[in-house]
């Protein structure tokens, strides 16, 4: 195992130890801060009993659809913003204004419009993913070496060939920076959407565990699941990046 991996693991162990230490020294009851081993066992029983699984599946679907839609629209918009300074000047203020409005404040409105089902969550997740992906695509497209564009012109490359062989490969490192941020924000968007009203999802389960069930270890186990989901999806993006982006 590489030493960095060991360090990462050591960090996790340290975190758990600190958590346990706070519980022991502070003498907190389980309904304020359950000890890590209790959360771990609740995580296992929660998954084994099928209590967490359906909620996780619902959230995963929202995240993936929201990310897909938001990233796709963000890439298209970013390309337009990067290629045309007129588009950038006209549209940018509105994009920034939309992004500056807290998604938390926007979520109830969107839930009202799109209903308590899947659509509302996908819209919220897509909305929050859109901005970083659009900005990273814009920056990436603008980073294409003008010398390479001249080369393409001298070789009579078509618009489409320029896009596929020059602009996209040159923009990929930057785009993946946006996608990395986007995937973690998609999880946030889905959970926020669930808070604004839903029947299923990890965000819902957090509320149920804290409220009607009053099962605080389950609430923590759900939080761990959300974090795990975010990390796993992030790693998937990184994996794609490794395959698609060649080292310079």
């Amino acid at each position, binding site marked *: 195992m590489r030493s960095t991996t060991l360090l990462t693991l050591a960090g996790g162990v340290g975190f758990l130890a600190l958590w346990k230490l706070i519980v022991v020294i502070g003498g907190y009851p389980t309904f304020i801060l359950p000890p890590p081993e209790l959360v771990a066992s609740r995580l296992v029983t929660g998954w084994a009993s099928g209590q967490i699984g359906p909620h996780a599946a619902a959230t995963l679907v929202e995240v993936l659809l929201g990310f897909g839609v938001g990233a796709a629209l963000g890439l298209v918009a970013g390309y337009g913003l990067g290629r045309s300074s007129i588009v950038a000047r006209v549209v940018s203020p509105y994009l920034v204004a939309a992004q500056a409005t807290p998604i938390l404040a926007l979520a109830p409105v969107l839930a009202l419009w799109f209903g308590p089902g899947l659509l509302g969550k996908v819209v919220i997740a897509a909305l929050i993913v859109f901005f970083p992906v659009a900005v990273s695509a814009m920056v990436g497209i603008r980073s294409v070496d003008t*010398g*390479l564009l001249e*080369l393409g012109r*001298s*070789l009579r490359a078509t618009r489409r060939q320029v896009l596929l062989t020059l602009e996209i490969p040159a923009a990929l490192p930057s785009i993946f920076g946006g996608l990395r941020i986007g995937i973690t924000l998609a999880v946030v968007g889905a959970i926020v959407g669930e808070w604004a009203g839903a029947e299923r999802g990890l965000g819902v389960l957090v509320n149920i565990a804290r409220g009607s069930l009053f099962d605080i270890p389950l609430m923590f186990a759900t939080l761990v699941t959300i974090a795990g989901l975010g990390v796993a999806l992030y790693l998937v993006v990184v994996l794609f990046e490794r395959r698609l982006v060649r080292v310079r």
Partner: protein
Amino acid sequence: MTTESRGRIELRDLSLSFPRRGADRLQVLDGVDLSIASGEIVTLIGPNGCGKSSLLRVIAGLLPADAGTASLGDEIITGPDPRVGLVFQEPRLLPWRTVAANVGYPLELAGMAGPERKERVAEALHRVGLIGAESQLPGQLSGGMRQRAALARALVLEPDVLLLDEPFSALDSITRDRFNVELLKLWGRLRTTIVVVTHSIPEAIFLGDRVVVLSSRPGRVVADIPVPLVSPRTLEDLDAAVVTSAARQIRAHLDPEVEPA
């Protein structure tokens, strides 16, 4: 079309200007007349900003002239042409592609099928002495090897004309000398028309059948000096008396303040 006219370049009263923000257009070339025979090597030399590179871009079809005509063979140049191979000052390789994929890039854009492309790429790499580096990325190569790859990319379409814009200026002088010798050897085999823009008087003389001197902006042809060296040339030829006299003439035209001795 005859072989004699295939790689012939004719520039007639060529003028070029660039728009400037808040000022008149910047006149870059003014009435350039130049004939380059098929299979000839002509070097262009002139002070900084005299429009040498712009002139090359007009021939490459990348810049339209304001007035006058540029023609290749029997046709007027209206845009980039696959019969013209272009090597820039920088290698301009696609950093995410291997050497072989970079050299094959023009063929790929032209829609050539994989197997034929592979053959042509291998041939071009062989010509420039880049065997064994096919699967390397440009970032892994030395500056000289990168420029070789760029040359191979220009040769892969088997052009009638090769335009080189200060192609070796980023290389150290020893590598540069070797490149120039190799370029002449390559020319000995291919006999393409070659136009080289350079800053270096010895390089201009060593490579050129003729050295064309441009004035400072706006660029005009102020001298057209034949170099009476026989092929194949060697670096030792640079010590010959005819070279010294050609160099003196070029220098006099580059800096008219100094009277030719």
